């Protein structure tokens, strides 16, 4: 099952770090996200970015998770040479992540 079936996402930058906010489409999907969408799974999914670590935060009140991807932006808004200097694409990208049924 693709994450896009369970959640919406948006991403942004803080210096060289990116964050991805994940919001469950249905409140009942939140428990699945908490169980399956681990920091380790997100770190391995985005290994190609060269990030150093991923921290996950839980917001059960709004059925959301927040991931901070450290050193994910190859220098960030001011210094990255990538086309996506600010990690704007990561929110769309994470929806491709496959979760166990």
């Amino acid at each position, binding site marked *: 099952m693709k994450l896009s079936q369970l959640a919406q996402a948006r991403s942004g930058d803080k210096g060289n770090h990116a964050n991805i906010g994940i919001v469950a489409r249905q409140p009942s999907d939140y428990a699945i996200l908490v169980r399956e969408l681990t920091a380790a799974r997100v770190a391995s999914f985005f290994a190609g970015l060269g990030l150093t670590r991923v921290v996950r935060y839980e917001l059960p009140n709004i059925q*959301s998770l927040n991931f901070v991807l450290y050193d994910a932006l190859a220098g960030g808004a001011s210094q990255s040479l990538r*086309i996506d200097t600010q990690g704007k694409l990561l929110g769309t990208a994470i929806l491709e992540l496959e979760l166990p049924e």
Partner: protein
Amino acid sequence: MPLRIANAAGFWGDDLSAARRLLATEQIDYLTLEYLAELTMSILARQRQKNPLAGYATDVCTVLSDILPQLQQQSQLRLVTNAGGVNPRACVQAISQLLVQNQLSELPVACVAGDDLLPRLPELQRQGLRFENLDTGQPLHELSAPIIAANAYLGAQGIVEALSAAARIVITGRVADASLCVGPAQHHYGWNNTDYHQLAGASVAGHLIECGAQVTGGLTDRWSQLDLTDVGYPIAEIDADGSCTITKPRSSGGEVTTATVKQQLVYEIGDPTAYHTPDVTVDFTTLAVTSESTDRVRVTQATGRQPPASYKVSLCYAAGYVASGQLLIAGRDCQKKAGYCAELMRRRLQRNGLLPNRWQVELLGANHGVPGLLPAPTDAYEVILRITGQDLDRQRVEALTREFAPLITNGPAGIAGYAAGRAEVRPQFAYWPTTIPRELVTPTVTVLPAATWLHEVVR
């Protein structure tokens, strides 16, 4: 009636028609315009270096021209913006000129400054401040590159003072984004600086509207079901306890739903239990988000506590030059050919001793936008070759921009897209995240009628 605050700009360069469209159908108390990102501050600082009258977000003049009739007719309407950038006085003077030309000579305009640390850095360092880089721990004195800008993120205090002195337009330098909303709310309801739950609620409202249409249908995966042509910019209706309703202008495009609000709550945050602003540290995990009616979402139960003892500082230094160019490469073998073109350019620059120090090759259309996400497609007929180079030596970056055009005649067949001309060489900036103790920064507030500000220029 709750306090109505609308935001019609989420960054410098945002939709110029947003304010005009918003005020055409809505009566509001405050219009905010948020223009400053980390990178924007460095660009503005570079402009100020070249011209002492530059260094502010000039978009504000265009927007103000559009809304002059409402400012004249609606005595409750006030404008609060960080358009001042690194030169709030110059911004105030440009705006005052516009006001005087339009029979608004008496309109009180405020300048909120005191955030600029650049001229104070040597003295502050002599006093023992190390301005350590929050990521690396390195003290600032070890940085040899020229510092371009250093600004403390001020809170709502200066804005509250300006509004208390009856300012109708408040121009600030680097004020935290959410504080543009907190200032009017704190002034309106008379909250103390320790009314943390109320300040937290207003900060949440500010966080939700500061990026403009991102909370009203922008950044949506429902784009095929919405009309975004006339997307409405957000309005926060703030109550005396700090709770708010997020909405948008009648008959505007987009949507405000619990989904758009939740998504914007988690936009560009770190630890949700400690969202730091200069005014309050907010806990997002106590918030309740509920649907009130169509395009109206309630956000309640914000909790706040004492803000950090230091202000965040936006400090940028010069990091050489950068340029980026693109060519369209076509053919069944386009990906291989694009790789070969990149290699040709690299070898030619190397031969001439002008290869930039940092070198990035991307094939757009071949899944390079997010490195490592997906394998390269097997059936692409066209890709865009994008090459970006960076170096402290401007000459090497210029050399890169010259290497694209020759490929069209002395490289492989099937290359197009050079009609736009040579890529621009831009100065590059690097960001040094640091802090300064609050007691070392005092906001300065000056409120004068527009005509008097002009007199200040003459003197």
